């Protein structure tokens, strides 16, 4: 009798794992490196447009077909205010590849993803940490990322300042996604 109970328990566990149950999932780090450095300048180049194709990341491609959700998201990097007052940066996102040409156009058609990430007056240097960054993303932006991560993995991010005048250099910028993946 005891033997049958053990067999039943083992069979149950195997069934859970094989069926793709929540028990068999794990959290996988996916990192996307941004162009480094890039500069956003309110007078000449007011925003940076970043085409993200997650399919270029081996960790993503490996788990793409078994993605269950997005656990965490962050944008980290070293931000240097080259000139101008203290201000803030924001990131907006659109599904797929888009090519908006003004900040107003981005704000009218994209969804705010992250921010505001603050930076002091020039020549302030601010390294945005993972903890700090994770608190700054919006639910609406996160929903788009989840949808895109589960879809074709292709989206566009726009970064710009909120102060009237800014010139900010971003170095070692990375998008970090923690995705749930399972069988």
């Amino acid at each position, binding site marked *: 009798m005891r033997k049958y109970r053990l067999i039943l328990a083992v069979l149950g566990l195997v069934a859970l794992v094989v069926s*793709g149950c*929540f*028990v068999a*999932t*794990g*959290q*996988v*780090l996916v*990192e996307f*490196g941004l162009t*480094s450095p890039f500069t956003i300048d309110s007078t000449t180049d007011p925003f940076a447009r970043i085409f993200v194709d997650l399919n270029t990341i081996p960790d993503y491609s490996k788990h793409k077909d078994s993605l*269950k*959700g997005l*656990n*965490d998201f*962050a944008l*980290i*990097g*070293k931000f240097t205010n080259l000139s101008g007052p203290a201000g803030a940066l924001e990131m907006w996102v659109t599904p797929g590849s888009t090519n908006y040409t003004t900040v107003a156009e981005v704000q009218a058609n994209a969804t705010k993803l992250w921010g505001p990430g603050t930076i002091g007056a020039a020549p302030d240097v601010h*390294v945005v*940490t*993972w*903890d*700090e*960054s*994770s*608190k700054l*993303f919006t639910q609406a932006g996160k929903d788009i990322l989840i949808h895109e991560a589960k879809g074709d993995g292709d989206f566009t991010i726009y970064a710009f300042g909120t102060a009237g005048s800014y010139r900010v250099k971003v*170095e*070692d910028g*990375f998008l*970090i996604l*923690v995705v*749930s993946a*399972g069988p």
Partner: protein
Amino acid sequence: MKRLSVWIAALALTCWALPAGAASVAVGVFGGASVPVAQEDNGSGSEFGIRVPVSVIPLVTVEPYFVKANGGDKSEDLGNLSITRSGIDVTGYGANVLFTFGGPMQFYPFAGIGSHKLERPGLDATTTAYNLGIGLGFKPPIVKLSIHVRGELNAVLDEGTTESSRKWASITAGVSYGLLSFPPVP
């Protein structure tokens, strides 16, 4: 709603065990190590808590618990930056059912359900947790103390989905003290 259902489940488990014959109630404390399983963004930490084993019928003990675990930080080198993500702190309560075998030296598989809160910067979620493990207990003669060592796997559902979870393996040691016994032992 989820919290309420966990409370009801815990209460039902406890009540299910209560009406039978000889019963005992104890209180215990435990502590140990908590290791994240397949979590690339979370580190190992420690945990401690309180258990209230209610034993009513032979083989079955229902045990409400409270647990608090501190996750370890996770570091990663990206470009020229070294970044750190704070570990996930867990606070939870629930109830396990233990199926005990043996006499003074006991072996018991157990399973249970709880409500666990996960916290770190950017994360504040309370969801359902499932527990599964095995334990060894030793009850020295005469004294009302018993010593326990357990290995356990906790799966805490991700917020808003039943398709994925975070998991921890933990090894704990604890001591329980017998509070009540029905009928009283002479």
